[in-house]
C-alpha cells in the first residue's frame, strides 16, 4: 500500500459559511468547502447520481424518484414561462425567464447525460443483466424493456450473420473458457476508482488483510469493491 503524503495530510478546518469573506486573508489554510456544507437540492442530488454513475464500474440503482421529481419541476417551470410570456413580460420578468430557461437547459443536459451513461452500461452488459435478477432490480421499467429487446435483436443478428454459419460446437454465445474468461462481459468491480471521503470512515479492510484508514477529504485510488459499501452509504464520493 502506498502513502502519497508523508504527513497525515492537509486539513481544512470548518467554517460557518461555504463562501469565504470577500476581503482576502491569504494567511490561513483554513477555508470551508462543499464537504462542510453539502447541498441537498434535487439538482445537486442529480449531479451526485451522474457522478457516481459515470465513475463507478458497476450499474447503479436508477434514481427513479429523483428523475420523476425533476421532470415534474421542469414541466412546472415550462408552464410558468408560458404564463409569463402570455401576460406580457416586464423587463424583470425577461431577466427571470432567461435564468429559468438556462437552468432548464442545464438540467436537461444532466438528465440526458445521466441516462446515456446508464444506457452505455446496459448495452455493454446486456446478457449479464438479463441473466442476473439482482441487477435487474436496479433498472427502470423502460431500461428493462430496452435491454430485453436489445438482446433479442443483437442475438438474432449475430446468429443470422455469423454464428449460424459456424459448426454447432462453436455456436454458444455464453461460453466460459477454461481460463475463466467469459463471452458474457460483466462489470469489473475490482476496477480502481478515485474516491474523496466526505467524512472520517472507519478502517477499511483491504484484499490482503491489512486495513486502511480513510480520513475526511482523503483522496484515494482504490478498488471499487473495497469501498462499494462506503459509496452506497454516501460516506465517500467518487471523483
Amino acid at each position, binding site marked *: 500500500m502506498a502513502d502519497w503524503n508523508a504527513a497525515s*495530510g492537509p486539513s481544512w478546518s470548518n467554517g460557518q459559511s461555504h463562501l469565504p469573506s470577500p476581503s482576502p486573508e491569504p494567511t490561513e489554510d483554513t477555508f470551508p468547502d462543499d464537504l462542510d456544507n453539502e447541498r441537498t437540492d434535487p439538482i445537486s442530488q442529480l449531479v451526485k447520481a451522474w457522478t457516481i454513475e459515470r465513475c463507478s464500474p458497476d450499474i447503479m440503482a436508477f434514481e427513479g424518484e429523483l428523475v420523476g421529481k425533476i421532470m415534474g419541476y421542469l414541466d412546472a417551470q415550462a408552464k410558468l414561462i408560458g404564463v409569463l410570456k402570455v401576460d406580457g413580460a416586464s423587463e424583470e420578468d425577461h431577466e427571470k425567464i432567461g435564468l429559468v430557461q438556462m437552468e432548464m437547459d442545464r438540467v436537461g443536459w444532466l438528465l440526458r447525460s445521466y441516462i446515456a451513461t446508464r444506457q452505455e452500461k446496459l448495452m455493454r452488459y446486456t446478457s449479464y443483466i438479463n441473466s442476473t435478477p439482482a441487477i435487474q432490480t436496479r433498472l427502470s421499467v423502460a431500461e428493462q424493456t430496452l435491454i430485453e429487446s436489445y438482446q433479442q435483436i443483437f442475438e438474432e443478428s449475430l446468429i443470422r450473420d455469423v454464428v449460424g454459419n459456424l459448426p454447432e460446437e462453436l455456436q454458444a454465445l455464453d461460453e466460459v473458457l477454461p481460463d475463466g474468461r467469459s463471452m458474457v462481459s460483466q462489470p469489473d468491480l475490482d476496477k480502481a476508482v478515485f474516491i474523496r471521503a466526505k467524512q472520517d470512515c472507519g478502517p477499511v479492510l483491504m484484499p490482503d488483510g491489512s486495513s486502511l484508514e480513510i480520513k475526511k477529504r482523503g483522496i484515494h485510488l482504490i478498488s471499487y469493491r473495497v469501498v462499494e459499501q462506503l459509496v452506497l452509504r454516501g460516506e465517500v464520493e467518487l471523483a
Partner: protein
Amino acid sequence: MALPANLMRSPLPAELEFIALQQTDVLIRPHFSMGKIRLLSGSYGPFRATANIEVPLWVGKYMKQQGKCSLIPPVWLNVEWLEEKLKQEISRPEEFAPLPFRFAEVSKVFLDIAPDDVPSPERVRSLLKDLREVRQAKTRKGLALLDEMELRMTGLGSMEINELRPFLIRAMGAMRVLASEPEVPASTADNTFATSMDDGW
C-alpha cells in the same frame, strides 16, 4: 443514445466545468434590482444594486456575461494567497498544498469571463500555471509508489484527478493482473527456456 465509449473512460474537462458551475457558489455585486427568483436549485434574491449576494456560479456567469453584475473572487483567487501556496508547494515536497477541490475549474471560469474582477489577472494566471507544474512534478514522482492495492493522493483537485484517471486506472489494473498471477518457480522457468532453446536450435 448511449454515451460514446471515450466519454465513459473519463469525464471531459468541459463536463467538470459544468459541474463546478452547478455546485459552487459565488458572491456577486449586482448592477440592477430584481425580485426573488425561484430556481430548481434554490431561491435567490431579492437582488439590489451594489448589495452583494450569493448565487450559484452559473447564475453569476450568466449575469456577468450580460454586464449585469461583477463577480467577487473567492478568498483563494488572488496573488497573495496563491504565492503563499506556491511557496508551500515547493517547501513541502511530500504533500500537495490544500487547494479547493475545484480550484482549476473555478479559476478558469473567473479568468475567462471576469478577468476585470480579479486583481492582477495575468499574475494570477501565471501563478496558477506554476502551481500546476510543481504539482505535476510531484504527481510524476508519486507514480513510483503505485501498487495494485491503493494510492493515497489527498490534496489533488478534481481536474488533476481527471487528467491522471485513464492512465492510473489502467496501470493499477495491469498491476492487479500481474500480482494475481501465480509465480512461476524460477528453476522451472529456466529449464523450460533451456529446453525450448535446445529443441529449437
